[in-house]
């Protein structure tokens, strides 16, 4: 069993041994005839983490690593195959809608696609008012209208925007509306699944700044899901790196990017195209993420890992404390991992940015 990330204060959200398997077996008769067995896609397989009150905890990884499945499990949109999700100590996983009603108000989600997540036939003020009505947070038309106007101002839109329909807004403005709707029930905890991935960079900057402001003003706690390491670096207090349904490293945002330990984290940080890499040549790491239907034995990363040894092919490493963070790697544990040659920060300091004009 892995070390649980110890929180200094009582964590707001605690996830323990969380797993979600999807059955992908052939139909029963085919199995009978071909003597096939049932097959499972282990989208999430034994994940532990805790999120502290007021922090931004990010999960990062490539497509199919299970990060979005975790987001859905944490808000109760899906039930886990095994494990638990606790919100302020109350178990969420597998509970009925009614039992979760009080928690539901306090946990909200923001989705990637602001085009698909707003009802096109509703005016914006009705979209935002729905959670207020559903949770009876304000009574009377005037009180609700006032609260909607306040929420619109909070996300830097104007109360007059409430009369419009979603299609009258740009992608960035729609994401602001999604955020206003999420805030309408006065939640403590927001799960944000790739909230800026569909947006242009300049709009992304506006949304990320807004999210930081709201966190500061309202004391929100974020679970932030993203594939974009630079965005994760920018917004996170702590980061969990996922690979094929498991956490491979979990540490503070600063440490993760300054001294990445797991070979997969290193690969990710090494390979993202970056502005500071202009004009450089480098050798990209080969290989691709294996199919989650047929993950490699032992450590799932071993076929791509330059430090893989016999033990890595045999035995899956557990997430263990190493320095300030947690890492699931035999090479780290055995001290076989060479130190990182020249961190990115050193590279960067060598490049004058905005220096003297020619």
């Amino acid at each position, binding site marked *: 069993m892995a070390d649980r990330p110890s929180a200094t204060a009582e964590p707001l959200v605690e996830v323990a041994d969380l797993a979600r398997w999807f059955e992908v077996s052939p139909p029963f008769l085919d199995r009978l005839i071909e003597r096939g067995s049932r097959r499972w896609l282990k989208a999430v397989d034994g994940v532990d983490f805790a999120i502290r009150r007021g922090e931004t905890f990010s999960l990062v990884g490539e497509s199919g690593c299970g990060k979005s499945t975790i987001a859905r499990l944490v808000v109760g949109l899906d039930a886990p195959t095994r494990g638990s999700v606790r919100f302020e100590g109350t178990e969420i996983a597998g509970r009925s809608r009614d039992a979760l009603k009080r928690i539901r108000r306090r946990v909200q989600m923001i989705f990637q696609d602001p085009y698909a997540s707003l009802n096109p036939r509703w005016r914006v003020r009705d979209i935002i008012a729905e959670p207020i009505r559903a949770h009876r947070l304000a009574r009377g038309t005037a009180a609700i209208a006032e609260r909607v106007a306040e929420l619109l101002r909070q996300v830097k839109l104007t109360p007059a925007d409430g009369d419009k329909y979603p299609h009258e807004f740009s992608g960035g403005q729609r994401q602001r509306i999604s955020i206003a709707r999420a805030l309408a029930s006065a939640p403590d905890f927001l799960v944000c699944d790739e909230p800026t991935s569909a947006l242009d960079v300049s709009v992304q*900057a506006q949304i990320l700044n807004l999210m930081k402001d709201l966190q500061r003003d309202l004391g929100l706690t974020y679970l932030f899901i993203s594939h974009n390491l630079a965005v994760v670096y*920018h917004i996170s207090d702590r980061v969990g790196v996922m690979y094929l349904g498991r956490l491979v490293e979990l540490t503070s945002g600063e440490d993760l990017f300054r001294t990445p330990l797991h070979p997969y984290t290193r*690969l990710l940080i090494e*390979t*993202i195209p970056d*502005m500071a890499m*202009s004009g450089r040549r480098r050798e990209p790491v080969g290989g*691709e*993420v294996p199919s989650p239907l047929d993950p490699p034995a032992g450590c799932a990363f071993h076929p791509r890992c330059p430090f893989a040894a016999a033990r890595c092919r045999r035995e899956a490493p557990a997430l263990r404390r190493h320095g300030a963070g947690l890492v699931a790697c035999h090479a780290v544990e055995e001290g076989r991992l060479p130190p990182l040659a020249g961190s990115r920060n050193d590279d960067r300091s060598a490049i004058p940015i905005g220096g003297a004009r020619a």
Partner: protein
Amino acid sequence: MASERSPLLQVENLRIAFATRRGEVTAVDGVSFAMAPGEVLGVVGESGAGKSLTGAAIIGLLEPPGHIAGGRIVLGGRRIDNLPAPEMRRLRGKEIGAIFQDPLTSLNPLYTVGRQLVETIQVHLGLGAAAARQRALDLLKEVGIPAADRRIDHYPHQFSGGMRQRVVIALALCANPRLIIADEPTTALDVSIQAQIIALLKRLCRDHGMAVMLVTHDMGVIAETADRVAVMYAGRLVEIGPVRDIVRQPRHPYTAGLMGSIPTIGGRRDRLQQIDGAMPRPGAVPPGCAFHPRCRERFARCLDERPNLLPAGGGAAACWLHAPAEAAAVPHG
């Protein structure tokens, strides 16, 4: 790199318009640039800036009601924007290759990748069946498909996303084109695969002397791949120059804002620089400089006089700050 003396591609004052119920809407307006043989030109901008339309116009794949409403496109000395459709079809693939974002839409799911490659090679190069298959095999090996002699008979769905994009690149290379238009070639791929495809494109460009017009919204990809960068805003070219200049010392306030809004690893973690407001939609572009309502450095001239590209640093920027008279008064950097 070859100099501007013998450009491979010249785009002059290109205007792309859409016929709508409310009249003609201009989506790309007065775009001019040239590409040298073997050069990688990155074209960046936000959604709707006109970068993909510019690429589509060059390769003759503008979708109606979009059409070229003005200007010229010259490839290797020959004007190609007014070619009849059959002639453009012959040119496309042979002289200009294309790589699009989603490899699945570029490949026919009903044919093996080998058949698609062989067909393309035969159409453009007129090789016999055996020679065409050999070339297809060589191309698959060149783009890094493992066990190419076996994979050549597989269907597109049997390849992963990254491998499929390699097949699309092989398809674009079939007739050894002089120019490749790559529109968001790595956007649909995971980061570790993205790096492999970028490295592949760079290598091919070097080995074959192909020029690549790389259209993307990802500045990281541009910074690592391109020789020069063209920045588009609201259908106009606002800045063009060597990649180092654009990334480190942008001369147009929009480019500077765009660079500042990109989070970088190891950078500061407080607030990102923010350009307030949004890019105007086509048809609602303000008079004067299209960026002036969002620009912190605007002055009277920006409001009613549209700036053309003016020399700035190692490149050019469409900004009145760089007009000789203004530059002395308000340095920007």
